């Protein structure tokens, strides 16, 4: 068994949202797919621990925004590495309420889908919600973000609750890297942090003190050195 096999599967990156009463929430997901064409239906896989899971389960609706390839890591961090139990993820975000009542994130979205839940399938840590497509719109042209691009080019990470979570984000090169103790993001001096204006080749020690983790916003002192 070679666990690296699983890195060869291709996915997009989406914001899945729902509402309960007048509370809105959303999270990042990679497992969203069309399951039938006539009538069009889609499915999404959500971790049972997530607040969005509760909202979809209770309200029976969800929406999905298809993220553009140039979405900043911090935007993904806001939805993917924080909990709606602690913060209002929609506070600084441009969105609208869709036909189903679910909020639709418009920032960095190429298009969106809305669905009414028709079935739930228990798959252990996650539930697959299947839904009839109620609405679909394209918002702008552009390349969608893929999980491979997010991981390999943007060097983003996955939280422990993701189906694609990798136990060891193994690092082999010599440069001293630092890992965020909050979200697992690794600062690699060879790559720098383009989103935060840190040029490639900048050692961790030379990053300004007000620099924050590009994924989750943690402070510099919350990083620790990774040993070889």
């Amino acid at each position, binding site marked *: 068994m*070679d666990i690296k096999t699983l890195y060869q*599967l291709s996915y997009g990156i989406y914001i899945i949202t729902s509402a309960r009463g007048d509370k809105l929430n959303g999270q990042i997901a990679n497992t969203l797919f069309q399951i039938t*064409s006539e009538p069009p239906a889609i499915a999404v896989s959500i971790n049972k621990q997530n607040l969005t899971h509760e909202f979809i389960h209770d309200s029976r609706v969800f929406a999905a925004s298809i993220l553009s390839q140039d979405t900043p890591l911090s935007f993904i961090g806001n939805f993917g590495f924080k909990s709606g139990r602690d913060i209002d993820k929609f506070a600084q975000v441009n969105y609208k309420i869709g036909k189903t009542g679910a909020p639709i994130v418009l920032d960095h979205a190429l298009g969106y889908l809305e669905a009414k839940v028709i079935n739930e399938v228990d798959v252990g840590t996650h539930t697959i919600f299947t839904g009839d*497509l109620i609405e679909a719109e*394209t918002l702008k042209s552009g390349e969608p973000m893929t*999980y491979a691009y997010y991981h390999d080019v943007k060097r983003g990470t996955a939280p422990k609750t993701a189906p694609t979570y990798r136990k060891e984000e193994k690092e082999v090169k010599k440069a001293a890297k630092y890992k965020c103790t909050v979200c697992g993001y690794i600062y690699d001096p060879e790559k720098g942090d383009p989103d935060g204006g840190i040029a490639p080749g900048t050692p961790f020690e030379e990053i300004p003190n007000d620099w924050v983790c590009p994924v989750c916003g943690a402070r510099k002192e919350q990083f620790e050195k990774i040993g070889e």
Partner: protein
Amino acid sequence: MNLLALRKLRYGLYVVGSRRKDRFNGLIANGVSQVSAVPANFVVSINKENLTHEFIKASKVLSFSVLSKNTPLSFIGRFGFNSGREIDKFKGVSYKIGKTGAPIVLDNTLAYVEANVINEADLGTHTIFIAQMVDSDIIREGEPMTYDYYSEVKRGPTSKKSSLYIEQIAATKAQKYQCRRCSSIYDPEFGDPDGNVSPGTSFELLPDDWKCPICGASKNYFDKLEGTE
């Protein structure tokens, strides 16, 4: 409602294999996704009309092979546009029998997973099988084929039985021809790189022994595609 939004979803392209007693079959699928990490569970969405659907139902085992970006269209045509009711799709193909007994395609394969079916859900035209991983391995290094690369760059057609099927739209002016057998479209602007036909070659100038890159049909299986401007 604009269904083109669905075209922005991203998928890989896989050969899904299964067996019923001594018979093997397989097909091309995009609806393959990991749905949990511990244990590693997958969903595989299959059209109910396909023979592979019957086989998975009967044996409760399946494999999927992650196809390389370099996979020739003819290989995808073999598994995607033929029926195992008519031909033996595994004839001439390199494969092995996995721990579950499912056949695993090795040609053009970067990696594979084999799994036992633990649950299924009826979705109308399709069934989603929930399967727990039994074994997996990497076969070779390379970039995986994605559905959008297959569709947009290789110009591969989408089966009417696919969940992604949208009525083909012939939008541009160049005179295109469509294969009656597999509905693949010859686009002169693009040529047929797999068949060494350079971009800009009109259909009329194709050699008489030219064959459909997907299903192998001869040139006279092609009909002029009327413009829809």
